[in-house]
């Protein structure tokens, strides 16, 4: 059987992030005046399916060939830490953990590196240049499945599971079954009627085995091609924070770098506040801090202690919508609805001063909230109705 490696640290931990490989250049990626207008990651992973993967020195100091005899999932992602990515890494590793490689190897160990830099030398060997990518190698070290995760997209868990299922000895055809339909069938929970979140959680609850390798060994030897020395990062210590949200005190433990948006969504499951750009450009994450509109993506959770936080969940009184919510419904002030919580939070803060604003003044005051469906005329109509009410 394969060599058994010590388990890795919790995905997203400091050890898992310790290697920093910088790209000298990201082709086609150009940020102008702070707006990531285009990020054309045209290069797709180039390794053909079924071919043996190139051997390489992994960030943990081991060579890829040492992992023969077990499926290996290579996850390439930017070094930039992001709770959503960390969460997804957890899902990948747990899926791998739950995967039974077959009767021939009941004690099979599965592997996952969640922090292979998509700009690093390993990535280059696999033809990954800047984009997030996931590659699955079979027990013989052949590439069996690969996918690129485009900017702004997230991978469906079902795709990974389907790819893993296709590795089973009795699978109908390798990789052919790796489609969303197959994945959906494999994952469909009994009973139905579950929300997307519950569904993911339910899937994860079936993960019985969690045995990982790699990232914990990040303190090992470094590939000579990695010239950028790792940034000595302080330990990711959490601090206790009490947040007063919608009149209720919540006590949580977060790292200082966790922004309020992630604390709301990931720690407290208040997912009404949306993550759009995560850089203060779109307004989808707008909340009220002490009654004023603010961007939760650019506010540290630790700095929000002692402030009165209101989210979209705090506007309605029981089943009765806030007048602004009702006005948005009445005026059809949204299409896809993703920006709507932020729009409504910005709008409710705006009308607090009881001023009667012209349409132009509303546009100017609301310019920090983007709506890609362009429901702007209806948003303005909704706000105008409330301010004249």
């Amino acid at each position, binding site marked *: 059987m394969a060599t058994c490696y010590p388990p890795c640290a919790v995905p997203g931990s400091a050890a898992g992030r310790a290697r920093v490989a*910088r790209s000298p250049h990201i082709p086609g990626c150009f940020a102008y005046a702070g707006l990531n207008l285009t990020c054309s990651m045209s290069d797709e992973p180039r390794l053909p399916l079924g071919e043996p993967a190139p051997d390489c020195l992994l960030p943990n100091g081991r060579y890829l060939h040492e992992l023969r005899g077990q499926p290996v999932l290579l996850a390439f992602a930017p070094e930039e830490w992001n709770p959503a990515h960390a969460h997804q890494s957890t899902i990948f590793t747990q899926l791998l953990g739950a995967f039974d490689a077959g009767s021939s190897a009941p004690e099979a160990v599965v592997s996952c590196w969640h922090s292979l830099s998509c700009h690093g030398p390993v990535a280059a060997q696999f033809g990954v240049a800047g984009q997030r990518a996931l590659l699955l190698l079979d027990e013989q070290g052949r590439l069996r499945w690969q996918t690129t995760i485009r900017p702004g997209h997230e991978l469906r868990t079902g795709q990974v599971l389907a790819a893993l299922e296709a590795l089973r000895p009795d699978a109908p055809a390798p990789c052919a079954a790796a489609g969303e339909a197959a994945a959906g069938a494999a994952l469909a929970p009994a009973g139905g009627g579950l929300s997307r979140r519950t569904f993911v959680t339910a899937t994860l609850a079936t993960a019985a085995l969690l045995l990982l390798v790699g990232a914990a060994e990040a303190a090992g030897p470094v590939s000579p091609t990695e010239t950028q020395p790792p940034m000595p990062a302080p330990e990711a210590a959490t601090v206790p924070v009490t947040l007063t949200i919608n009149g209720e005190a919540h006590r949580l433990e977060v790292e200082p770098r966790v922004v309020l948006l992630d604390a709301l969504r990931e720690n407290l499951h208040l997912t009404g506040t949306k993550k759009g750009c995560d850089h203060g450009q779109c307004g989808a994450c707008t909340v009220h801090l002490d009654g004023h509109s603010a961007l939760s993506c650019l506010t540290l959770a630790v700095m929000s202690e002692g402030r009165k936080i209101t989210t979209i969940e705090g506007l309605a009184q029981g089943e009765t919508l806030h007048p602004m919510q009702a006005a948005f419904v009445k005026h059809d002030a949204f299409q896809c609805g993703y920006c709507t919580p932020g729009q409504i939070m910005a709008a409710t803060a705006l009308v607090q001063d009881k001023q009667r604003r012209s349409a132009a003044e509303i546009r100017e005051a609301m310019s920090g909230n983007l709506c890609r469906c362009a429901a702007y005329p209806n948003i303005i109509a909704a706000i105008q109705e409330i301010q004249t009410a």
Partner: protein
Amino acid sequence: MHPFTYQRATTPAQAVAAVAPAPGAAFVAGGTSQLDLMKEDVLRPSLLVDVTALPLTTISALNGGLRLGAGVSNTAAALHPEVAARYPAVSEALLAGASTQIRNMASLGGNPLQRTRCPYFRDPAQACNKREPGSGCAALQGINKVHALFGASNSCVATHPSDLAVALAALDAQVQVTGPNGPRTIAFPDLHRLPGDTPQQDTTLAHGELITSIDLPAFTGRSHYLKVRERASYAFALVSCAVALEMEGQKIRRARVALGGVAHKPWRVPAAEALLAGKKPSEKLFRAAAEAAFADAKPLEHNAYKIPMGRNLMERALLETSGLQPLQGPAGTAFAASVGGVSGE
């Protein structure tokens, strides 16, 4: 975002004592630009010292002028009746910048310290002497459309993005600072520096020095801020201009003009100011002043458009400040400050 430790200070002395001895430490207030750059991996502080609990959030009278606490939000300062009435350029610059949410979060002390919007600075994959000294300047031969006309070097051609800073430079505001070596006062035009060979240093502040207030001197003239941008709202200036005009009868006693978006710091134009002093306002005079202001401009490959744009903007700002042309909107609002109007009406 790289991990860091966090402390909340309650006095300026405490904040300075926490930051000064730690080379990787930084103050944090609104965080609107800072956290963005931390997420982009451009800034990697090891310690953030929160200065939002410091007692620096008031606006008070001072020697005929106003003392603006460094912790006052951009919104609170812009809408303060004394600021809007006596220093409309300040309110206009603030309200023509960023979005409502960001103005609510941002602080007056932090605003002038925001980093450049040069896209090469903000992309860690690109060469940038400001971000990584010695790595080169990708903008010099790159897409340098939003870059400097004045005072640049071969190390850096970045511009300073703050609107407020341009207004404060024209008004000769003073910056009160406290630091490891005690308090000192900096004339606003001396707060920022030119890049030279050390573009990593934006200002003349030493590590651990904290801005405690921005003091607006007594001023009875007219002031105005005008800004050209690519969108009607929520965009940085391509070129901007702040004017502080003091009249004596029909003639200009003193004119101070600062340009934004054209240099590593708010760019005062002494030659043009000298030309305006003692003269009667006229279109011809203002045109000549604008010509003088841009006489020494050194365009790069993609930013020569800023020269005619800047000349026209400065002329118009002078015309509007002097009353020869009407403001486009109520004084002290974003509508007065925005060339081309706001919001596509």
